[in-house]
């Protein structure tokens, strides 16, 4: 109750506040226990491992706010990366166009999801599960199951890797994480979109009460579909980030990334029942997972412990939300 009067509490909301505290505590924990965890390079690698999950999570936040789910964003990401890589190598499409097409394809898959959910009224879980399987298969079909290696930094067409990490003379050894700045920039834009524009308000409203929103004369079909398109576009963007951070993209992968994105979103306080959520929370959630992933090896644990602990964090975060709701009597 004392917390009620705390301004910070009001601004962030309980769960988000808890998430910020957890993020800080985790970081300090690893700094204290792990040698060199506090080093610049480590910090950069935390950020490196969060770009594409961050993009996925921002996109999927919109879908979850509508009360839906997007299981396909991980495989859409890999599929888009594979197709655009194939366009570049096999058809000689210029790199800049490949990258644009990559994002556009993501949007197109999102539109398919949006159509199935908002117009055909399929359950989001099933519709996006279908898209997940289709895109996972499609990536393999297009590449004939060969992996795609995007040009390295040294090659002329490797310039795009610099979007996410600048390296070079006079720059620190780990490079400058420009991708991080890009992620923050897009997060700010999308937070503005969600909270301060008409479409954002409608997406929030229909997640809160779809029928009441429809009966207020709002075109809920359009705005619900838009949420999936946004998720798709961000999956396309994540594909660009993924391609520029990792040297090789393997067909048949991408499963599980969507769950990282969803987990980040939910840890950040977005409610799976819709109507409640924030981009800032989602970013915090994603960083919590990245810190875990990067930090655990520093205290002598293998990376797969990340999954193990993320599971606990996820359940604890959602349980905190459930408790909070119960206390408020909703």
């Amino acid at each position, binding site marked *: 109750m004392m917390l009620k009067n705390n301004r910070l509490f009001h601004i962030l909301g309980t769960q988000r506040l808890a998430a910020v505290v957890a993020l800080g505590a985790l970081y300090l924990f690893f700094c204290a226990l792990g040698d060199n965890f506090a080093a610049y390079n480590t910090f950069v690698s935390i950020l490196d491992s969060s770009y594409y999950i961050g993009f996925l999570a921002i996109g999927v936040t919109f879908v979850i706010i509508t009360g839906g789910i997007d299981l396909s964003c991980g495989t859409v990401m890999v599929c888009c990366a594979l197709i655009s890589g194939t366009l570049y190598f096999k058809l000689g499409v210029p790199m800049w166009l490949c990258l644009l097409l990559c994002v556009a394809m993501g949007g197109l898959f999102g539109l398919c999801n949006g159509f199935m959910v908002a117009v055909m009224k399929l359950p989001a879980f099933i519709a996006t599960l279908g898209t997940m399987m289709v895109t996972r298969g499609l990536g393999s079909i297009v590449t004939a199951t060969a992996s795609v290696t995007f040009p390295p930094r040294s090659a002329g067409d490797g310039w795009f890797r610099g979007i996410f990490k600048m390296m070079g003379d006079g720059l620190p050894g780990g490079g400058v994480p420009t991708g991080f700045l890009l992620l923050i920039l897009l997060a700010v834009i999308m937070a*503005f979109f969600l909270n*301060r*524009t*008409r479409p954002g*308000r*409608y997406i*929030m*409203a229909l997640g*809160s*009460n779809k*029928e*009441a*929103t*429809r*009966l*207020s*004369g*709002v*075109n809920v079909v359009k705005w619900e579909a838009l949420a999936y398109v946004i998720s798709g576009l961000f999956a396309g963007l994540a594909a660009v980030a993924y391609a520029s951070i990792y040297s090789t993209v393997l067909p048949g992968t991408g499963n599980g990334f969507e769950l990282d994105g969803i987990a980040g979103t939910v840890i950040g306080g977005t409610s799976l029942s819709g*109507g*409640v959520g924030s981009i800032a929370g989602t970013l915090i959630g994603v960083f919590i997972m990245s810190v875990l992933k990067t930090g655990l090896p520093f205290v002598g644990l293998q990376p797969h412990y990340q999954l193990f602990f993320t599971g606990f964090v996820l359940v604890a975060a959602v349980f905190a939300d459930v408790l909070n709701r119960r206390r408020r009597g*909703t």
Partner: protein
Amino acid sequence: MNKPILTMDGIGKRFAGVRALKDAHFDLMRGEIHALMGENGAGKSTLMKILTGIYARDEGSITFEGRPVTFKNPREAQEAGIVIVHQELNMINHLTVAQNVFIGREPMRGKQIDDGKMNRDAQVIFQKLGIRIDPKAVMGSLTVGRQQLCEIAKAISTEASVIVFDEPTAALTDSEIEDLFAILLDLRGRGIGIIYISHRMDEIKRITDRVTVMRDGAFVDTLMTADCTKDDIIRRMVGRVVYEDPKHRSEAPADAPAALSVRHLRAGSMVKDVSFDLRRGEILGLAGLMGAGRTETARAIFGADKLDGGEILVNSRPRRIRSPRDAAAAGIAYLSEDRQRYGLLLEKDIAANITLASLRKFAKGASLDKAEEGKEARRHIERLRIKTPSERQEVRKLSGGNQQKVVIGKWLTHDSRILIFDEPTRGIDVGAKAEIYTLMRELVRQGKSILMISSELTEIMRMSDRVAVMCEGRVTAEIPIEEATQEKIMHAATRREARSAS
């Protein structure tokens, strides 16, 4: 008569600050059919939900078979011998009749459900009741009336000593009602106490022994049915209200043009042929019993449900309305009786709710003008006298009356000219009710038009300038308020198709 089997005394209950029950009283003898009457919202259902452990009471005592009791949930009440046959059916459609009757207490043979015994036991109960229903039939294949009989069979099979019937005849045909009455009399003969909730006066006179009347959540009187007239009961039900403030003359301008005209509207199974005119500056009351198709008519006009035929004219010009969006654009607003489900974003603040239908007005370039939104919300909070600390208060924290005002504010922001109020004061306490009424009168004085669906005759008589009555998907009467009486309205509300055709 002997000693009461059940006594409820001084029962009080509040919901979110609204008083639903205050010093309610009820007692029941063995072998008695005791009617519980009152208008919608008088507190009958709440009292029964407290009795059967669905709600916890705030004050008062319940004595059952000589011992003070408190049931924490319906199961405890059922085990003690008190069951309720709900108005809305609680049957699982894809299970069989017998499976439904014995759900949760299936006869077992070892670890297995003994289906044979279950079917035989169900058969025995049906025989005792004198009804012919196959225990192996799938519930969903039965008519509503027969499902209701199954519900009764279920209640009886628990060896209950008190059975509550909540408007059991609402969905039954005449012959099914006769069957039900025979069953009730038989149960009475076996010493079971029956609480009978109904609005149908002739049923009450026919089969009950006593009548307890409630009003505004409080006990009014208990009468011996044989010694009282219908008027005695009605007078106690309506109290002073109806005599205090009915409208004697239409306050609408006599020569006003029609703001909304509906011609031969058809929609779904509930709206068969509806025509009426709503004039500018008028409150048209739409009366009728439950299931008459009034809400469905409103939803069809508003584009919420699909229209199968007919014409809608706004200001004498035909309008194609295929979605709530079209309706809102035509200046029509629909304020549902279930505000929480169909009207509000509960976890959003007042400002977001009030601007939801007209967000375009608050767009400044790509972004929303939050300052302007807040200003608009504060304007409505003041004008509609919404009780709240600020416009950023979440709507779920408001009382029912204030929530209704938020919905009204939403449509005023949108500048809707035609307001369809569906049960405008349902679930709203007495004080806020009067405020809503004042508000509605103000709105029509400003030239807006109101179609008011209401099941409360006092509300119809108090607010309407004209009354349209619906029965079974058709308008069966249009009565100017000067000529309207409760009897006339009730007569039209029960005028069935066959009779109205002749």
